[in-house]
């Protein structure tokens, strides 16, 4: 019991110490949580050819920004994203994609289940986001094969993002 209390306190201190340090200018504060790469929801692809196909971290950043832009413009998805902190979302998504594509980043965001809790995301929304991501990857020149290798990593997150 006492051990658990100490562990919780330690985790809390760690978060207090860590999260604000990584957050960038213009982000709203979030409730404390335990940071871990495991929150990214999958193990990274260990193949330099995939990272190269995404044009490294610069390419990944462009793909995330374009995907978020397209989603905000989307009449169905826009209203779902609008109320939330898009500065933070862009940063954490870039970290997550970079981590999962073997780009050597650390993921500092929340896990997929907590991130999308009570949001009411349905499969149709999930698929719309996949389509926007495909558009962004295609515009970045990522081949269909490489797009699919990345989507294969994201696809199982459907069960955490679409909660019923």
């Amino acid at each position: 019991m006492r051990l658990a209390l100490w562990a919780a306190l330690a985790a809390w201190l760690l978060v207090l110490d860590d999260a604000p340090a990584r957050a960038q200018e213009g982000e709203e504060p979030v409730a404390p949580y335990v940071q871990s790469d495991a929150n990214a929801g999958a193990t990274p692809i260990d193949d330099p050819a995939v990272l190269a196909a995404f044009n490294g971290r610069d390419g990944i950043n462009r793909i995330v920004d374009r995907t978020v832009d397209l989603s905000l413009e989307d009449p169905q998805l826009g209203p779902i994203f609008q109320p939330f902190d898009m500065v933070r979302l862009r940063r954490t998504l870039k970290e997550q994609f970079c981590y999962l594509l073997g780009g050597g980043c650390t993921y500092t965001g929340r896990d997929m289940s907590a991130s999308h809790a009570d949001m009411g995301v349905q499969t149709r929304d999930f698929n719309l986001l996949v389509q926007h991501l495909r558009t962004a990857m295609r515009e970045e020149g990522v081949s269909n094969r490489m797009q699919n290798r990345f989507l294969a990593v994201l696809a199982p997150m459907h069960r955490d993002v679409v909660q019923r």
Partner: protein
Amino acid sequence: MVFGGKLPLTRGVTSIEGSTGGGLSTWALVAGNETEDGVGASAFVTRVPLSDYDFSAYGVAIGFFDRVELSLAHQEFDTGATGAALGLAEGFTFEQDIVGLKLRVLGDAVYAQDSWLPQVAVGVQYKHAEHDWLLAALGAEDDEGFDVYVSATKVVLDQSLILNATVRGTRANQFGLLGHGGDQDDEYHAEIELSAAYMVTDRLIVGAEYRTRPDNLGFAEEERGYDVFAAYALTENLTLVGGYVDLGSIATFDDQDGAYLSLQIGF
């Protein structure tokens, strides 16, 4: 209730028997563009001009919550000039209606990419052919019958592949157009349907299918069928399928092959 929402081509195309599949085989995918939150529908027309015959099919299907599929199809097998050579009238046409019911029982073909477990569906097709007097004269036991099947489908996204295997219990002669059971064999047999397709893009797949079939009638041999095809999702509602199909010997005329052309709409 939510309409639409499936990813392109994940409603498959419609097989010649009206169930969702590839062209020649049935898959475990469910008709329509709906997700688990809604209802969808599809319709198709398919033409297969073979060497000595003209095969065509059309029909509709409804998908409920990406789980249950109800399908109706009509097939016509026009003997054309070959009709006279068979001792029938020129242009004599064999016909049948097919009612299909499919239930997705487990697994997920698309999202569960961290598991090898395929999407599995079980189904039944009731087939009723016309011209019972002629089918009897050709040696068929019945003009109607049931096919039952189990299908397993998996999108292997990592490899850009779509794989399917189906086991079908059937007594159907030439898909049921020549009735069910025959003078040579009247038992149910387990037949196999295999398909593999490569996702060139998320809107274009190319693949091949192979299907074994019973050989029940004494007067004519029935052989395996196979095809190669390309399916292109022009829009989220319109899919074009083109290919080449070989059905082997049909009613004593050997080497029946030709183009496979299909148009599918889905909502």
